[in-house]
């Protein structure tokens, strides 16, 4: 810390904490699949702005149906 004043160091710590927090939030949303819907809407709109985008409810149902029909969906090891 030599050469830096206390407030500057504090700002740096706060900045790092914010970055770590943002990264954790991003990671959790990706890992849990929460971001799948955002990905879908962005994609659907980019392909055809006029298309009717499924609601979140419809989208999640579709994902569940796909998972139920997938022979390996959610396979877990011992």
């Amino acid at each position, binding site marked *: 810390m030599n050469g830096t004043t206390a407030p500057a160091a504090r700002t740096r710590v706060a900045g790092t904490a914010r*970055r*770590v927090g*943002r*990264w954790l939030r*991003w*990671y*959790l*949303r*990706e*890992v*849990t*699949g*929460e*971001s*799948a*819907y*955002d*990905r*879908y*809407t*962005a*994609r659907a709109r*980019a392909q055809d702005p006029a298309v009717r985008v499924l609601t*979140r*409810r419809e*989208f*999640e*149902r579709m*994902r*569940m149906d*796909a*998972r*139920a*029909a*997938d*022979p*390996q*969906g*959610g*396979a*877990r*090891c*011992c």
Partner: protein
Amino acid sequence: MVRQLRQARPRTVVIWTLVSLVAAAGWAVLALSRGEEVSAAWMVAAALGSYAIGYRFYSRFIAHRALGVDKRRATPAERYDDGLDYHPTDRRVLLGHHFAGISGAGPLVGPVLAAQMGYLPGTIWIIVGVIFAGAVQDMVVLFASTRRDGKSLGQIAREEIGPVGGIAAVIAIFTIMIILLAVLALVVLNALAESAWGTFSVGMTIPIALFMGFYLRYLRPGKVAEVTVIGVSLLMFVIVAGRWVANSSLGETFTLEPGTLVIWLAVYGFAASVVPVWLLLVPRDYLSTFMKIGTIGLLAAAIIITVPGLKMDAITDFASNGEGPVFAGSLFPFVFITIACGALSGFHALISSGTTPKMIQKETQVRTIGYGAMLMESSVAVMAITAACVLDPGIYFAMNAPPAVIGDTVQSASEIITSWGFTVTPDQLTAAAESVEEGSLLSRTGGAPTLALGLAAILADILGGEAMMSFWYHFAIMFEALFILTAIDAGTRVGRFILQDAIGGLHPRLAKFRSTHWWPGIWFTGAVVVGLWGGLLWIGVHDPLGGINTLFPVFGIANQLLAAVALAICTVLLVKAGRVRYAWVTGVPLVWIAIVTLTASWQKVFSGDPAVGFLARRSQYQDGIAAGELLPGARDMSDMQTIVNNATITAAITGLLAILVLVVFADAARMIVRSLRDPGSVTLQEAPFVESRLIAPAGLIATKEEKAELVAAGLGPEGGIPGQTRGGERTPEGAAE
């Protein structure tokens, strides 16, 4: 690569020399100390040091030399990118998914049972096995499937070896699945039987999962993190509430006999495999994944902070005399089949050829995800063996030996175990059971209760002390039961799909069976699968000689035979691809595990020692029946008959598996000989080469060059295709470091 090594910077040389010294010091202390307590720190040093060296050097060699991963070649995720099944997923996210897929109760149970031979044999196999066999298998299968549009292991076998090997592989996979489910169910059952606290809290996971399912379906669709937090809080509450229930008038209701629990488990397994996935499977999967990652992290932290001492000997007499009470047979081959997951697990080949290859961004990432995730799994196994070895050996044996050996009173158990050279008093045994508020800890076989006790001892050391022992014990029981139940319904479902597909393929009129909407077919196949594993579970529960020591070796053999099948397929692929020079990479572990499993199968069926060989046991007890005398373990003549029947069934299953695998080997050998004689006559069934436009780092942390490449292409740390806006949320810039 060789050039890079020659030019290695001095700093790199110093770092890797230090890592090697740490690993070597760990191994030296573990191997050389005799008779005194060894600190678990040496275990950690040996494991982490060896993993680092294996990952840095060997996995790199395999990826770039043996497999020839190509970062210019587009993966299925990039080519078919549909935003759902196939979509290029950030490597750090995919590592999490893949690890959640491969890790389960296996690496927690096997090492605990193997601890009867001391901590050393198990630890060596876990660490050496994962570096040269387990992680190699996972990575090569992941690579092979990625090159083939994410095809499953069975499909790859059919296309690359032939129909005979392919069909044998599918039957083997199905049989192994049934055995796996029965043994896992038996582990749960032994942990819950006669324990009101455990039964209540594990039973409550079902309503909690149902609630979560409704929440995600109707209240707030897609809010997974939020519902998982609610679910985990409820879970903690029911673990605490379990003690109140056990001590109240309801206690009786939840104290169930093993025979009753079998029925409940089978009913549950059937219901869970036919109800919609959103109701039970998916929400419980969220719970168990969270608990798994959380508990493993907690245990790792606790071991590093408390650095417990290992009370078990390095090598016990049971390693050489083969008379161990937990499972019979000598070190070779039985340590290598008892510890399956954690060192080498055939089941991972099914996961590595499942969803992961459809989501990987780059071929170069198979090293991080395939090899890396398996190293993480192996570290879980090291923690499990540590947890078993911090217990007093006398208590360890009292918990893991069947009643037929140690009797059912603390006095008889103490006398017999002390006669083996592990001093333990009846008071110590009673005190151990009281510390976790269980009626008795004698013969709580299956590994789960032992692990729970070890884990409770380690965790209570940093969180809560003696007073929290019983909470941590039931926490650990619940956490194991949770993912075993998840494995049971996912496994029953996968087994059902295999069966539906097989019946549907028999005759055009049966094609209806393949439908995922035709309820009679689903109910019928679901019932068959549950009937099969339920039947085996019934046998295990009613085995007068103790079910775990009969069935666990069969499970180990099954899992390792599947690994042999996967490694055989990998070796065929390397030879067919013209990489004969590197075929030893999968060939050597294949030969090793083939020798281990076939020797084990042979001994389990034909050994003249009735404690090991099923047929010898069968004739011994049959002679007993003929002579009208009761032999050890049997209380009456019907017990004698049960032992005879069980020995027949287990011998038949073990024999069947070995034969199936020999068929796969023969077909694979035929293919290898053909490729060597006339390389022009074989074609590799890879998907065609498509140039990749996607840019993404290979490892978890981007190298300097990779960072420059990402910056030049205007991409974030997650990578992507330059100029294409990707949906969803982007990584916060720069936050990934």
